[in-house]
């Protein structure tokens, strides 16, 4: 709705928006600032907003003590790996659902999406046993597979909604001109589908990056990604706030950067395509 808003009111709204945004962002900001404080300054009273002595020692120590970059690397491998693997399965599926739908297509899609709503504990034990017998526990490969599996429904749904926006006439025109199937896909469909595929990948990478249920329950020291690593850091050593903040900051930094530049795609993905 395009209601006329007076400039003064608009200005006061902007100020209020900044206050709300700051309140919401404050916990994140505080974590980032704390990561640059010394342990002593982190629990100082009254709390110092800006670090009195800027330091990078927390980051160094987190790396030294627990080989942080190994877990960071694990996170990168499983989130990108599961996304690429997922695309191999979901692109053909979404493609055929979008361009040759049958009576059952909508039902199948809704059914797939509904599996995403199932609580993961319902399938944990069977999967744990399968992984155990295949020697996949605490392995990057196994984790990549499972993250791909749990995000398949969202991927196929997202790709489907994007593919549906591609006018089918263009594909038919290319077919009239004698394009064979693979040419039609490579030269006509893909260029138009790239933005959709890119947003789907982005969303999936973030979801896999944040996934904690499976990573906590299927990994130990070896394949643990950042989420599992940080969770292990938390309870017994709860007093090392600066180091914990440093570990957290490194874990959320990629999300903050990606989120800033791809906010529209994120909204669309996180709302299952409900917000365009």
């Amino acid at each position: 709705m395009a209601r006329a808003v007076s400039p003064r009111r608009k200005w006061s709204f902007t100020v209020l928006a900044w206050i709300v945004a700051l309140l919401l962002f404050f916990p994140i900001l505080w974590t980032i600032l704390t990561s640059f404080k010394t342990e002593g300054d982190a629990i100082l009273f009254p709390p110092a907003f800006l670090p009195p002595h800027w330091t990078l020692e927390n980051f160094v120590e987190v790396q030294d003590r627990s080989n942080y970059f190994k877990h960071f690397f694990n996170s990168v491998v499983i989130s990108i790996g599961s996304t690429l693997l997922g695309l191999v399965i979901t692109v053909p599926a979404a493609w055929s659902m979008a361009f040759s739908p049958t009576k059952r297509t909508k039902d199948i899609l809704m059914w797939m999406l509904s599996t995403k709503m199932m609580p993961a504990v319902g399938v944990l034990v069977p999967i744990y046993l399968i992984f155990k017998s295949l020697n996949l526990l605490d392995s990057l490969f196994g984790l990549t597979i499972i993250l791909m599996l749990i995000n398949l429904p969202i991927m196929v749904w997202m790709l489907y909604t994007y593919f549906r926006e591609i006018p089918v006439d263009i594909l038919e025109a290319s077919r009239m001109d004698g394009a064979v199937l693979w040419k039609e896909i490579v030269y006509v469909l893909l260029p138009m589908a790239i933005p959709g595929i890119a947003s789907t990948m982005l969303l999936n990478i973030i979801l896999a990056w944040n996934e904690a249920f499976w990573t906590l329950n299927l990994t130990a020291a070896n394949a643990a990604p950042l989420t599992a690593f940080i969770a292990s850091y938390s309870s017994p050593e709860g007093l090392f706030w600066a180091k914990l903040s440093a570990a957290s900051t490194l874990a959320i930094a990629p999300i903050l950067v990606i989120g800033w530049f791809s906010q529209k795609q994120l909204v669309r993905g996180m709302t299952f395509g409900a917000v365009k």
Partner: protein
Amino acid sequence: MMAHATRRRLPIQAVAGTVPMILVSVGVFIIGIGASVLWSFTSSKLFPAYDFVGLQQYRRLWADARWLISVNNIWIFGLLSIACNMVFGYLLAVFMDQRIRQEDTFRSIFLYPFAMSLIVTGLVWQWALDPNLGLQQTVRNWGWTDFSFAPLVDAKTAIYGLVVAGIWQGSGVTMAILLAGLRGVDAEIWKAARVDGIPTWRTHLFIVAPMMRGAFATAFVLQCVAVVRVYDLVIAMTGGGPGIATTMPAVYVIQMITVRQNVGQGMAGATMMLLPILLVLALGGILAWRRKRKGVAA
């Protein structure tokens, strides 16, 4: 949708495209869930066994105080966080709809909590609600010395600490969904309501909000999914404590399987968690089937 279906090439290609997807979903979910439900009727201990004991595990489950607390907690957490998220999300959306400057910046910031790992969210709020480091001490330091806000240390209030984190995490994304819904409402409605002299809040409550049913439904489903799955937030923020005060069904099942090595009872808990969703799905399926039949008859 049907317009797409008119002309197509060999359906074999369509089938070939969907088959791997369906196989994978069926393989994992149906078989996995089926096995879990099956084991819930057995006396499985550390490993699944196949000596069936009927409903015994369910009887034990519902006699377990820990499970009852979990169920109670998920109701409190779910109802409170969903209700608050809806209210805050709607207020934020109305507020963002005023065409404030740099809307995209604000949308990014409001969405950050939702894009972050719940593990980090849990840790950050564990710190913020720590009586000696966080909010309470800060406010006391400003001079309000008997200010008290440390829900996590008291077993009675710890669940509300989780609710606070849940609201922080979910209100931004609710806002984004409701904002899209709000933008879809015809501008004429506002003019008509103003001409009729209806106060703004009543226009919102009785005219605009009901028109946004779709957006509210989406937000609601999204939140329900998050609530049923809540696990990592609890692990990072309270670990289920103090004591067992903030344990949740998912946490309970995991503990049953790992610490107490009682797969049968754990699976009974997991089945109870699946039940509401299966019921909703079945209901949806029946409704769709009836609608289809009516369509054919007419």
